[in-house]
């Protein structure tokens, strides 16, 4: 978006327009550019490197994600506290954004371990996705050992979107980030090696519903543009605080703003999977290849919440009274409805999907708190939840039918797992206890952080609803433990595929993160925000940087 209008034609109220090339901070852009370059390179590999490129692709993707994480860490040390605007103000980076980017990079790296895992020379993805399931052609491809190494560039592009999503500083960039993130995910959902029809159904559902959500989001942007006369976050915030763009007198633009916030909210709440926009989650989580489900359950959630926090705290930060009732309603609906529906589920992946919905509800209570503590609480919660859920899905990939066949989703068939593989069942038990928020796990600290912020922010009734639905969710987590540990195996029962180094590594990382963040969270909490002393200003730190930068411009 480089405007090409001659300088003398510029109206005085549009100081941002100039013919000079925008100053690009290459250093701060480096994480995005790294992933982008790696993605493009991976596509070229697909085209020019002959068979046997799988190792190369994995190495490239891992290297790119590691580099991103290293860069983010280095930037964290050098970035000024108020943050910085990048690329002509379409992106903004501050500590919060760097935290989200770093978390996405690490979680994506861990997901990559799951994605790269192979059993008997086969990974979790279809030999040739374009063939009709069950056809001769498909068989031929399976026999020939075809594989989709395109997964790796797709992951890289999805991660690019996730890195951009919370860093966007105007709505158009945010929309582009949303699409860059979502399109590869739609594709990857349909790539499961087994139960392919199911997987394709999930992909189509996700795509259709996702397209609707994007449309809502875009429509909302139009409304907000109509109200504020700009898509830039700082301008919108200024407009909200002064009662709308210059064309509106006496607050008559208010309906536009309310509709805009509502529609943009729908788009974002769809991505985090809050009720009533959650319906895609169970189907998609169940149908998608489990490693991709793990990627979505961890990274996508982090990125989507990063964007959601940014949108509600920065451009809409001045209209709390408009969105707070909306988020109250959605948070209550999410926590209550998802917890109750989850009780009736029989399939592990669907259960974890509903559990993810409930957790989104818990994190929303921290958004409602609208405070620095709430922001920090949500950040901690997301990181902790990401590791735990990755570990849980890693366990799911290992429990299979008798002859090492497909994954066993049905809970009844998990009976007696604790007797056969105590370590595996014990790890999953720990993850479930963390989901339930039992002390000495990361889940408890996260829950405490968001609920504490919500109570301090005056949302005590929301917290009461939260703890009550926590009690309901505990029921189904505990039921899985009952099935695994207290029941005898029925008949043959599931077999546990021997954990490869990668999957075993993911589980071990999940256990370690769950325990360390649960028992010694201080070191991590200290680094969440720059000088986040409790009781600081009730708006995100991102605000300082946005307003300061727009003032300079």
């Amino acid at each position, binding site marked *: 978006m480089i405007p090409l209008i001659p300088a003398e034609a510029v109206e005085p109220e549009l100081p941002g327009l100039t013919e000079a090339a925008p100053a690009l901070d290459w250093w701060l852009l480096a994480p995005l550019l790294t992933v982008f370059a790696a993605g493009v390179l991976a596509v070229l590999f697909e085209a020019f490197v002959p068979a046997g490129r799988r190792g190369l692709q994995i190495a490239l993707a891992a290297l790119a994600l590691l580099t991103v994480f290293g860069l983010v860490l280095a930037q964290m040390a050098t970035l000024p506290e108020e943050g910085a605007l990048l690329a002509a103000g379409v992106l903004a980076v501050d500590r919060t954004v760097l935290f989200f980017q770093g978390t996405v990079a690490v979680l994506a790296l861990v997901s990559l371990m799951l994605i790269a895992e192979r059993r008997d020379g086969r990974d979790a993805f279809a030999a040739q996705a374009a063939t009709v399931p069950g056809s001769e052609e498909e068989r031929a491809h399976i026999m020939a050992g075809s594989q989709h190494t395109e997964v790796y560039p797709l992951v890289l592009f999805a991660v690019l979107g996730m890195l951009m999503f919370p860093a966007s500083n105007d709505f158009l960039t945010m929309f582009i980030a949303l699409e860059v993130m979502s399109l590869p995910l739609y594709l990857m959902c349909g790539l499961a090696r087994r139960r392919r029809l199911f997987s394709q159904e999930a992909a189509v559902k996700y795509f259709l519903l996702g397209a609707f959500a994007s449309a809502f989001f875009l429509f909302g942007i139009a409304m907000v543009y109509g109200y504020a006369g700009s898509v830039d976050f700082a301008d919108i915030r200024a407009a909200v605080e002064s009662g709308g763009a210059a064309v509106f007198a006496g607050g008559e633009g208010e309906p536009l703003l309310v509709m805009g916030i509502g529609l943009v909210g729908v788009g974002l709440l769809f991505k985090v999977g809050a009720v009533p926009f959650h319906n895609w989650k169970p189907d998609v989580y169940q149908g998608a290849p489990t490693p991709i489900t793990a990627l979505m359950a961890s990274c996508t959630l982090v990125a989507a919440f990063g964007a959601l926090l940014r949108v509600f705290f920065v451009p809409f930060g001045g209209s709390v009274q408009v969105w707070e009732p909306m988020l109250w309603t959605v948070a209550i609906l999410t926590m209550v409805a998802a917890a109750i529906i989850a009780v009736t589920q029989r399939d592990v992946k669907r259960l974890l999907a509903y559990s993810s919905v409930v957790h989104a509800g818990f994190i929303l209570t921290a958004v409602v708190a609208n405070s620095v503590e709430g922001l920090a609480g949500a950040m901690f919660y997301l990181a902790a939840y990401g590791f735990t859920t990755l570990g849980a899905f890693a366990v799911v990939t290992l429990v299979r039918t008798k002859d090492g066949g497909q994954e066993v989703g049905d809970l009844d068939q998990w009976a007696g797992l*604790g007797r056969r593989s105590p370590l595996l069942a014990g790890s999953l038990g720990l993850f479930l*206890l963390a989901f*339930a*928020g*039992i*002390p*000495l796990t990361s889940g*408890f*600290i996260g*829950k*405490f*952080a968001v*609920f*504490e912020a919500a*109570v*301090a922010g005056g949302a*005590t009734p929301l*917290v*009461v609803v939260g*703890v*009550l639905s*926590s*009690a309901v969710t*505990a*029921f189904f987590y*505990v*039921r899985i433990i*009952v099935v695994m*540990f*207290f*029941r005898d195996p029925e008949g043959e029962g599931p077999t546990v595929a021997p954990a490869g180094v990668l999957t075993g590594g993911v589980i071990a990382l999940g256990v370690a993160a769950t325990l360390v963040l649960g028992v010694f*969270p*201080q070191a991590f*909490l*200290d680094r969440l925000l720059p000088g986040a002393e409790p009781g600081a200003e009730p708006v995100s730190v991102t605000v300082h940087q946005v307003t300061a930068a727009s003032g300079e411009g």
Partner: protein
Amino acid sequence: MIPWLTLAIALPAVGALVLWALPRASAETAKRTALGFSLATLLVAAGMALSFDVSAAGRLQFEEVHPWIPYFGVNYAVGVDGIALALILMSVVLVPLVVLAGWNEHDDRPDGGRGYLALVLLLEAMMVGVFAATDVFLFYVFFEAMLIPVYFMIGRYGRGDDRARAAVKFLLYSLAGGLVMLVAVIGVYVYGGTFLWSDLVGEGGALSALSPETARWLFLGFFVAFAIKAPMWPVHTWLPSAAGASRPGTAVLLVGVLDKVGTYGMLRYCMELFPGAVSWFVWPVVGLSLVSIVYGAVLAIGQTDMMRLVAYTSVSHFGFITLGIFALTPSGQAGAALYMVNHGLATGALFLIVGFLIARRGTALIADYGGVQKIAPKLAGTFLVVGLAGLALPGLAPFVSEFLVFVGVYEFNAVPAVLATAGVVLAALYILWMYQRTMTGPLPDTLSGLRDLSGREAWAVGPLVALIIAFGLYPQPVLDVINPAVERTAEENASEAAAVADGGAEEGDEE
């Protein structure tokens, strides 16, 4: 200075880890290791008790404060006053006896009892921690985390087909209560700005400026969790099924120690953190306590299973404890605190003896026994003594505490005191009738050859009987430790208590 409390928490926790790390095939080693660690913990606790300054039992001693999560103002803070010390001592006395009493239970388990004994030791660490914690957050952490070992002890190592259900019921009840308490814990932090108990309580404490309405809500949040834990009617239903599905050893720790956390919490947290809210809750709680006393006793009479029967008697006994606490008189609260210790000893012994019967015949049904005293007189005799302790016979320890509770409640108001005597009468009925049905009468053929108390079993239950008799005849040492702590609470509630007593007297007259 020796960090006694940290030592008493860490030692059993290390023991649990050692047990888990032991090789599979070493059942005998596992048992010995568990007994060794629990005895070592007992020694540590004894050492602590000896260096405890009784003359200053009203204030916290052996205090340790280390920052844990400064971000939330959380400290690892432990310390004990007289009440906490007595309860910790009771807990660490019970654990080695439980290990000893269940010595042969593990022989047919594939893991040789490693898993179960490790959980027992882990639970011991948390029991000491929960009584010693002087940071509300730390208390909550122990309060919730200790559910997990018990959940596995019931669900995985319990008795009967219903154990998984009973374990889930136990866990969900306790978790629901605990989560409600979490809101109150957060509230304490938001309003008080600290979790340190010593900074929160008292005149000019961080919570002294709380508005009465907020204080009431926070009080209620804590109280719900403690009432479920205690357990008080009508949220007691998890206890009989949990105890019925437990091994006797689990039941001893569950009813003898875990449930005390509820009443201890009422005394320590509800009363002291929110003195302004107490008066508002006195009469409702007294009413619920009376219902618990009578209801628990009546249901105990109707039980056919001895484990469930003892569990219901405990519902009745916990009614006395809460009644004593909420009478808000020094003797009532001293009686309640003493009751907690004595109940742990008496009920623990009762469960152990039922456990000996189960070990012999594999059943806890009353109908399966009869005439046991003819062939196992020592077993029957011990059963009678601890049973009589359960019904508070003078000369045995529970009598002293029950008497103090009655005195305290009478000072507060005569009506509940009179109503509570129904519990004493019914206690005689359920205990003696159970004894009569199982120990006297003709000996059925199925029981021929029943062994009498073995040496190991005598060592397991003997110390408890000795303590029951000793504290029955000379309760002064325990009272010396408990009283100053109770008086401190009572002083803080003094003005409130007076106001309530006046109001209560008027209400009593109306009745």
